[in-house]
């Protein structure tokens, strides 16, 4: 459907040279290279993934190893900084750089896991709701509307206080809070596609419901879901950091950037680096993901792509 639309737009906007769809967009890879911020985001995220996977080999020290004699050492470029601790040490003498590298694992893992759990459940609910319609649809949308009106974070606090904080609880709580957006998006797309000819054809050919949902409807959801998942990923990284900062997320001796900021807060006046570096790491990660998300949003949305294409053509003239 989208191909037809962008083709007709290419014809009306560019009467001089007929431009095919592949030439107009050049595929995703060329599209990413043309979009500098998106490319920067992708490279940064790639770097972060590399760091997260190889953190034990990259980190110069054990992130939990304490050394009271070498506590509160400043970064290398300040007076008293040493080569053994490039970014200094915290109040227990732990190496800040090693903790930063290891912290990336928690952030990215919690992000991926939550998006995966919340996304699969939300998409499943949305598919059922949109395809089945009728009573089922009413119940599921009613459920979604009710849960959207819940005070999410406070309820999360209550769950964490009752069950006790851990990485698994954080993932479960964040997924419980976030699945509704996927369900809503999926439902609206499915509703739009249900009456189209290709779904009807599949039904007439005798496809089972499961096959229609997975083979015919799900692929059409890939692009919007990918964008939404990326945006949610950024939100989850921030949420995990905030929960850990409040002491309700990842628990010591595990490392998390939010936890490090909370611990460094008490030494903010004497040792600025304890708060600054983990905070920067969070901001850097979220920014990278956001850049990718905004590139994805434009690239995968036919309407946005047409707009951009038209603008480019207008500028060239």
């Amino acid at each position, binding site marked *: 459907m989208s191909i037809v639309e962008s083709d007709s737009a290419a014809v009306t906007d560019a009467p001089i040279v007929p431009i095919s769809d592949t030439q107009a967009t050049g595929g995703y890879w060329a599209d990413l290279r043309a979009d500098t911020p998106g490319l920067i985001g992708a490279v940064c995220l790639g770097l972060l993934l590399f760091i997260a996977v190889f953190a034990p080999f990259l980190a110069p020290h054990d992130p939990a190893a304490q050394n009271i004699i070498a506590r509160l050492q400043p970064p290398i470029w300040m007076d008293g900084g040493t080569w053994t601790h490039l970014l200094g040490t915290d109040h227990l003498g732990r190496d800040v750089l090693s903790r930063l590298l290891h912290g990336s694992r928690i952030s990215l893992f919690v992000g991926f896991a939550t998006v995966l759990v919340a996304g699969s459940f939300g998409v499943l609910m949305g598919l059922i709701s949109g395809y089945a319609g009728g009573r089922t649809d009413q119940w599921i*949308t009613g459920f979604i*509307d*009710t849960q959207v*009106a*819940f*005070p*999410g*974070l*406070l*309820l*999360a*606090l*209550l*769950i*964490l*206080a*009752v*069950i006790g904080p851990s990485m698994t609880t954080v993932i479960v709580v964040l997924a419980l809070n976030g699945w509704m957006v996927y369900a809503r998006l999926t439902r609206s797309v499915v509703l739009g596609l249900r009456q189209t000819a290709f779904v009807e054809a599949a039904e007439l050919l005798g496809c089972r419901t499961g096959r229609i949902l997975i083979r015919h409807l799900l692929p059409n959801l890939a692009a919007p879901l990918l964008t939404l998942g990326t945006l949610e990923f*950024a939100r989850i990284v*921030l949420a995990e*950091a*905030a929960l850990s*900062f*409040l*002491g*309700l997320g990842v628990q010591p001796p595990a490392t998390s950037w*939010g936890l490090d*900021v909370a611990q460094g*807060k008490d030494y*903010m*006046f004497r040792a*600025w680096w304890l*708060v600054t570096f983990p*905070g920067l790491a*969070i*901001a*850097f990660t*979220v*920014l990278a993901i*956001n*850049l990718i998300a*905004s590139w994805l949003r434009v690239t995968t949305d036919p309407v946005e792509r047409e707009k951009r294409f038209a603008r480019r053509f207008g500028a060239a003239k």
Partner: protein
Amino acid sequence: MSRFVINRLWQGVIVVLSVVVVVFILTRLIGDPVRVMLPLEATAEQRAAFEAQLGLDRPIFEQFLTYVRDVAVLDFGESLWQRRPVLEIIVERAPATLVLTFAAIALAVTLAVPLGVIAALRPEGIVDRIVVVISLLGLSIPQFWLGLLFIVLFSLTLGWLPTSGAGGLDHLVLPALTLALPAMTRLVMVVRSTMIDELNAQYVKVLRAKGMLPWRVIGVHALRNSAVPILTIAGWELIRIVSGYTVVVETVFAWPGLGLTAIQAIERQDLILLQAIVFVTAIMVVVLNLMLDIVYKAIDPRIEMSAK
């Protein structure tokens, strides 16, 4: 209109009821309140006495009925931490949260609208690029960290504003700003994109061709037409702030509102106080949602009458 309001009221009641059920299931069935609230070294007799005091030795169905009855008259029991009625604590702390919330949302809207409009005047111009970059940064910086940076900059280095606590207006500035900034960045993007679409519309061209002054075209006609999406997002942001963002910011600035109290209640294992705060927040969210729906309806009659 009245049918619409009743419909929405009904929805709100369902939300509040489900919060009651969820809180009950969480605190009584999944969690063990005695284990959470009493210290580890408590004896078996102390545990039994505590259970009897909270009515936990009764059948679960009876417990639920008592619970619902108490909640209905806002009787949340006595706080374990402060040894006084929970309602008293909530009434004492709620005003601080409300003041902070409304200061933040007011700040966010007053900053976002002019910035978004200016950015929309020349899409991809210099100002627009700066606004987009700033809002991307604002979206990516963790709120608690931003608050700490503000404390370091404005309180410790420049000495302009107090670091924490409540008091005069000067105490409100940093927490409100921290709370407002992420909301503002999201709002700016909405103002910008809706204004770009409006300014490309036919009626704007007609008004310009008629010779109407640009500020009037933009400020009166185009802005009024983008009011509904802007207000919708502003309403969402308000609800987001109420339903949780205050917890983080109040903790950073030791602002004595409900959010800080919730964290203190968790630290002191006071589930009774915590569940009351969750419940009161749920009611606030429901009431705000209802008010916002009525406001949208008043602004834009095209919004559907029925609930769905």
